[in-house]
């Protein structure tokens, strides 16, 4: 029971002031036209205390049995809105997005491969634990703290990216990687809200690596 109490204390809490500020701004934005609302909504992120942060800390690529294997370490921090949604049983899907493109001087880059790793993070009220569900493999683990869960999600190990034969390693191919909160997998009403507000726009910068 001691653990349970501690974990309860770890539940994300959204401060009332942030909510009020967001609402006021949103109401003010509502007075203007659609275009003005878009601009204001995009600037709404300036007023939030915790906007969240996704960042690729390290990405290593190695060849193992004719496959390029990726080991990624990411620092994931959810925004207040995302934390509130998670606390209210909304499952969040975090995606590792891999793009392999070939550089073309005469045209836009050609996409050779696009792969993603989808990991769902949810909170179980009964057990008061965070469930990390690898949607691609079906593997799932639960954690007493969000920190542990995010830490686990932030470590992608031994991910078979692409067969070595598909990459020419002539310096033209570029492997791009980012980790992002998938807004497509949010519930419908939240998607529309997320479109106008920046709280659910959590994504890291593209991490690029040229295979050699």
């Amino acid at each position, binding site marked *: 029971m001691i653990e349970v109490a501690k974990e309860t204390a770890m539940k994300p809490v959204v401060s009332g002031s942030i909510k009020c500020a967001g609402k006021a701004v949103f109401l003010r934005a509502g007075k203007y036209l659609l275009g003005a609302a878009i601009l204001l909504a995009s600037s709404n992120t300036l007023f939030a205390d915790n906007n969240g942060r996704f960042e690729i800390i390290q990405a290593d690529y190695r060849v193992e049995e004719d496959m390029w294997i990726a080991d990624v370490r990411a620092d994931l921090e959810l925004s207040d809105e995302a934390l509130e949604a998670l606390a209210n049983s909304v499952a969040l899907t975090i995606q590792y997005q891999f793009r392999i493109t070939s550089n073309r001087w005469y045209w836009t880059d050609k996409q050779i491969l696009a792969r993603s790793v989808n990991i769902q993070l949810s909170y179980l009220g009964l057990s008061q634990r965070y469930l990390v569900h690898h949607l691609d493999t079906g593997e799932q683990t639960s954690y*007493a703290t969000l920190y542990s869960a995010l830490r686990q999600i932030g470590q992608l190990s031994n991910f078979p990216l692409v067969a070595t034969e598909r990459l020419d390693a002539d310096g033209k191919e570029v492997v791009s990687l980012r980790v992002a909160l998938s807004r497509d997998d949010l519930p419908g009403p939240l998607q529309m809200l997320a479109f*106008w507000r920046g709280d659910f726009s959590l994504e890291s910068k593209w991490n690029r690596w040229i295979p050699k």
Partner: protein
Amino acid sequence: MEPVDTKIVRRRFATLLLFAALALAIIGLVLLREISGNSENFSRLYQTILLINAANAVVLLSLIIVNLVRLFRDKQKDVPGARLKARLVGAFVLLVIAPMAVVYVYSIQFLSEGIDSWFDVKVERGLTDALDLSRNALDMRMRENLDQTRLAADSLSSLPDMQIYAYLPELRMSSNARELSVFAGGSKIIATSSADPSNAIPLLPTDEILLTLRQQNFYVSLEPRPDDEYFVRTAILLPSRFGAEPRIVQALYPLGKGLGPLANSVQNTVTRYTELAFLRKPLKSSLTLTLSIVVLISLLLAVYGAFFFARRLSAPVQSLVAGTRAVARGELDTRLPSGERDEIGFLVDSFNDMIEQLSAARAEARRSEAQVENERASVEAILARLSSGVIALEKNLTIRTSNQAADKLLNQDLRSQEGRLMESVAADNPALKKVVDIFMDKLAQGETDWRTQVRLTTDSVTRVLVCACTVLPGSYRSRGGYVLVFDDVSELLQAQREAAWGEVARRLAHEIKNPLTPIQLSAERIRRKFLGTVDESSSELLDRATQTIVQQVEAMRDMVDAFSEYARAPAMNRTNFDLNRLIRQVADLYPAHRNQLPIRLELDETLPAVNLDAVRIRQVLHNLIRNALEAMEGQEDSEIVIRSYLLHKHKIDCVGVSVRDNGPGLPEEDREKIFEPYVTTKSKGTGLGLAIVKKLVEEHGGEVEIESELDEGTCVTIVLPIGKTKDADSAVQNGGRTRRISA
């Protein structure tokens, strides 16, 4: 190639734009509705839809602004139909906005209340209670499982690893665990026993377990399984023995068929409800946003539709107003485009028919007006060139019109007096008053068609006018009236008299001259034959008698010669000569004698040479001087003054010669007739002198005037055109003939 009407093109483009906006709006709204209920397509379509709707809104807003600006401008410029269009737009917009606002507000309220009604406080509390109950129940279960694990750990704590392996299955079964494992350190498996034979590898302790065990020697948690079941994981840290790594006893307990599905059900329900409760606000916002977009687009469409239909409705009226204004300006070639087959179209067709008829009537009126104007111009031209004076009077006796001849005959500018009463105009003009009096008398007697002869004296000139009056035809428009016509018959009468006197003279000359010679011859024969044969007294008587007969016959012959000269009109022989010189020559023939002073000459030495018949002018001068001398016969200090001067009369260069005497003068009644033959106031003379003067002067195109005062004297003035050159000569002759003034 027909010219393209830019208005039609613009209208078609606007209609196309409207339909495109309408289609876009429908597509956008349908898609919006589609994604609102289907989150899978959201991110794929939402931006596109938003773009479509935003573009749609921008297009509609631009169209509305353009229309508003145009409407405002039209209203400012007072363009026909602008006010009607503004009213229609206002009415349409009001009709659209009011119900739409009501629907919108109620929809938002209904939406909000509808969504809120899904959530009940009691349900929420029940779920929370159920969750707490479940947690309590599970806590007890977890505590029991932890105790069981502790017991197992106690029994294993003193056993070596080999015995643990053998004893473990029995211990697992006795504790009802699904899996019981013993680990050395964190991940080294000492022994494991599982109820599932296929599961050879036990579930390794996680970092979280190891961390917890380091802190408090035990760990317990309820963990979900992939198959939506829950199991209780417990772990006990055994104390280290003989310097070996510490052992961890981990046991997994299923919740069982009774508690497991219940826990699962509670979890799923709570999750679903919590999620729904959380999504309540976003759901409201998204639905409100969707509804707002729908309402906004619908509103913009409706407002633009209001402009569109207001334009369509007001266009024929606008066209009619513009057409009416154009017609009012006199543009009768205005035709309105035929509208649709409705009442407005019928009105437009009727307007076109009316304008057609109006145009035809106006053309006809113009033709008539032109015709009337032509006729009027003709009449005016005729009247202007008419020698007869004409005065048209209204029925109320005001002057309607008159001609130049009337002005001249009546010596009154009647044309500037149009619109005035004839009587008031005639007040200052005795000649005209005489005519008006006659006219009024006749009118009083009920005579409207009459003709009479009037003798008028204007500016010392006496004219005989034949005055005729008749009634002008009247109709319901013209008021009728009278027309007075004056003909100057003075010259005609004079000519008639002269012709009569000429005939008399000719007959007298013929009839009297013939017997004169035999009478004279007979008297001379009697004298010759009997003068010597009779006694002295008889001889003297005979001589005296025959002398008297001969003298009287001579005198009679002279008189007959004078008559014949008056009747005869020899050809004119014009020559250039000095008139002053001629006057001097003639005056020299009349030297002063007895009580008579010499003729005094006051001649203008700058007088140019004249082109006249010198013989006739000489005779004129003789007649005038003789006439003056005879008038002053026996008078003391009688004097004759002959004066010559240059003057410009009737736009012609003329010379004037006046012969003035200081005789007894003429009585007024004789002045008018003094130029007629056989009219004389003297005891001697034939009475033909001045008649001949007048005749000879008029033959030169000149005028004779006489001024006389009793006991003061008489002055006869002749005015002759110079007629110096050949051209001037003809001009003089023409002018003379047309401007002859009868004395």
